[in-house]
């Protein structure tokens, strides 16, 4: 038998070990010992360079759509008949006269090809239009409150089309920025709604178990087994066409989240089921902790980090859903501009062959979705800072 029957012998080890426990530790370790879960997560996340970069990019994009009136040089619905389907103007630094310190663009003039009768734009090299920052332009009211007419950039006279114009001569850059506001917020609001639904129903399902769990699970399976696009089509066909654009916008968000919550609910449910049987939850029960306190102090903090990562990964799905709905012409409709609505315009042979700049909104969708996916990946890796610590 291993242990000596004389307790004194074993106590000797005990005292020596106690001294070791008392030993001082250096400061960085000390910091680690007092670190909360969120600090540990941040330290883990920081190591994930790509995710941090994407996080910054996303932050930047959201700052941009917070003030689209300021960022965009024009208004999204202003038509410029002289510049229909104009290509993007290249920003230049070198002209015939040499190097310019201020970037500039050349003006465009329309010419009709005498043989094909096709309209072409040619550069008018005599007009150098320097790009200025914080120029005065179209009047607007920021958030409907602050009247202003300062725009981030623009040219003094004439037009500046960084991304070209559409069929009606509307500035694509302006439209992409305004569309970003709709598309990017629909993702957030949609995910928020499905988060509320998923957390409540998934939480109830996992915590109560039994028959309630069974019913909620079956409902979710039924929702998930519908083919998505026909279901969206049916639901959005039910939106009355006379509704205002804002109402339609919210209706679309609700439709997206009614389908999107099931995935989140599953994640919450499985987390709760596994946590419910963890020893620390049993210990809390045994010390007389009330159920509300167990849920709020033990369960929710334990899976919150994981859920945030899942939500981050769910946002691009929402955006893609909105984009495809609008692309199919059953989501948002003009005059509301979203990336999907803009892409719908490029749905023809002309855009493909003659005006490829009309597909720039697609590029934004790709960048945005990718950035969120990388950010979500990083968050997911950091979400469980205790994973590698065991033993």
């Amino acid at each position: 038998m291993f242990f000596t029957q004389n307790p004194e012998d074993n106590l000797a080890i005990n005292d020596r070990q106690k001294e070791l426990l008392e030993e001082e530790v250096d400061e960085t370790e000390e910091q680690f010992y007092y670190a909360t879960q969120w600090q540990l997560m941040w330290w883990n996340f920081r190591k994930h360079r790509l995710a941090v970069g994407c996080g910054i990019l996303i932050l930047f994009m959201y700052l941009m759509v917070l003030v689209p009136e300021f960022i965009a040089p024009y208004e999204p619905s202003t038509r410029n008949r002289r510049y229909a389907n104009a290509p993007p103007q290249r920003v230049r630094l070198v002209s015939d006269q040499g190097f310019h310190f201020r970037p500039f663009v050349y003006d465009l003039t329309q010419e009709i090809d005498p043989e094909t009768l096709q309209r072409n734009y040619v550069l008018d090299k005599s007009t150098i239009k320097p790009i200025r920052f914080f120029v005065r332009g179209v009047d607007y009211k920021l958030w409907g409150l602050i009247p202003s007419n300062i725009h981030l950039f623009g040219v003094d006279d004439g037009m500046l089309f960084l991304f070209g114009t559409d069929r009606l001569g509307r500035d694509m850059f302006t439209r992409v920025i305004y569309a970003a506001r709709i598309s990017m917020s629909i993702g957030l609001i949609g995910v928020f709604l499905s988060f509320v639904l998923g957390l409540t129903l998934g939480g109830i399902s996992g915590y109560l178990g039994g028959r309630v769990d069974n019913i909620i699970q079956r409902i979710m399976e039924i929702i998930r087994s519908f083919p998505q696009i026909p279901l969206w089509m049916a639901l959005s066909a039910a939106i009355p066409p006379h509704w205002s654009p804002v109402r339609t916008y919210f209706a679309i968000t609700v439709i997206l989240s009614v389908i999107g919550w099931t995935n989140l609910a599953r994640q919450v449910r499985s987390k709760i089921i596994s946590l419910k049987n963890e020893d620390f939850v049993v210990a809390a029960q045994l010390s007389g902790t009330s159920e509300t306190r167990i849920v709020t102090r033990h369960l929710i903090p334990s899976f919150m980090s994981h859920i945030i990562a899942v939500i981050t990964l769910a946002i691009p799905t929402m955006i893609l859903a909105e984009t495809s709905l609008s692309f199919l012409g059953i989501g948002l409709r003009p005059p509301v501009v979203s990336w999907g609505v803009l892409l719908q315009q490029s749905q023809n042979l002309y855009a493909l062959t003659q005006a490829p700049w009309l597909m720039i909104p697609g590029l934004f969708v790709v960048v945005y979705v990718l950035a969120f996916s990388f950010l979500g990946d990083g968050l997911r890796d950091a979400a469980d800072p205790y994973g590698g610590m065991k033993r």
Partner: protein
Amino acid sequence: MPEMPDNVILSVKNLKKHFPIRKGFLRRSSGAVKAVNGVDFFIPSGETLGLVGESGCGKTTLGRVIVRALEPTAGQILFRTSQGVIDLAGLGKSELKNVRSHIQMIFQDPYSSLNQRMTILDIISEPLINFGHTRKECEERVSELLDMVGLNPRYMQRYPHSFSGGQRQRIGIARALALNPSLVVADEPVSALDVSVQAQVLNLLMDLQKQMQLTYLFISHDLSVVRYICDRVAVMYVGYIVEMAGTDQLYSKPRHPYTSTLLSAVPEASPHIPWNYSVLSGEVADPAADRQGCAFAPRCQYASDICSQEIPSLHDVSLPGEDGHYVACHFADKIELEGVS
């Protein structure tokens, strides 16, 4: 009010815990796993009862039913509090909360038993807060408890990830003792620890028992640990207690064939002593099966007809000079078994 001898703090009578097996789409119940299937034992106040048995024999389930983390299927759990004897098996949620402070548990896994997102102070003071102590009282009590379990009270603002397995187990012990319980169910408290740390934690448990007049139900599969710390030992096999006796008596003169085989499986820590272990044939009995006789009968070399027809009851077989040797075997008086020195 139920009756129980004065020196006994916990007395379990015919306790059963069956887990239903549900099958098919409608989840109809088809049979049950009888994890604990009619267990009787008692613990005198201030003693340590060891509960040993192989994996899956129902030790942990029994422990969890006693602390009422699980609902018992049948039977009585009589427990002595200052107000008198109560039957834990029949208590509802609100009554149970009042008893919680008297019975606490120490868990096997020092990693999953502490919430990683709470500081040590929050973890240990949670039971105190539940029983209406103020923040300030908690802090004083926690520093006292940390001192008692051999940790520096300066560490109370740290998180569990800064502690080793042994230290975490000390924190778990401090939490269990926060409310001054009289009975502590220790579910394999040292089996997840290094051998060198095991000794420290065992000594700590023994010191605390003296200081606080604790009674332990010590669940373990490690026979050497049990021998070191326990006053009496109960051996479990597939949901039943097959033998219960004072530690020395049980180790030197086992009366149940299963106990004898279990003891022989422990190797001597010396290369010079030949290891005469006996190997059982067959498999461990299925806890879901309906049985008529002794669960050990199919593997027992002494078994005869009666063993597969009648379940032996746990009865007192003490010889003169022994006290309280209980065995559940039809042939306890007739067979000679070997123990360990």
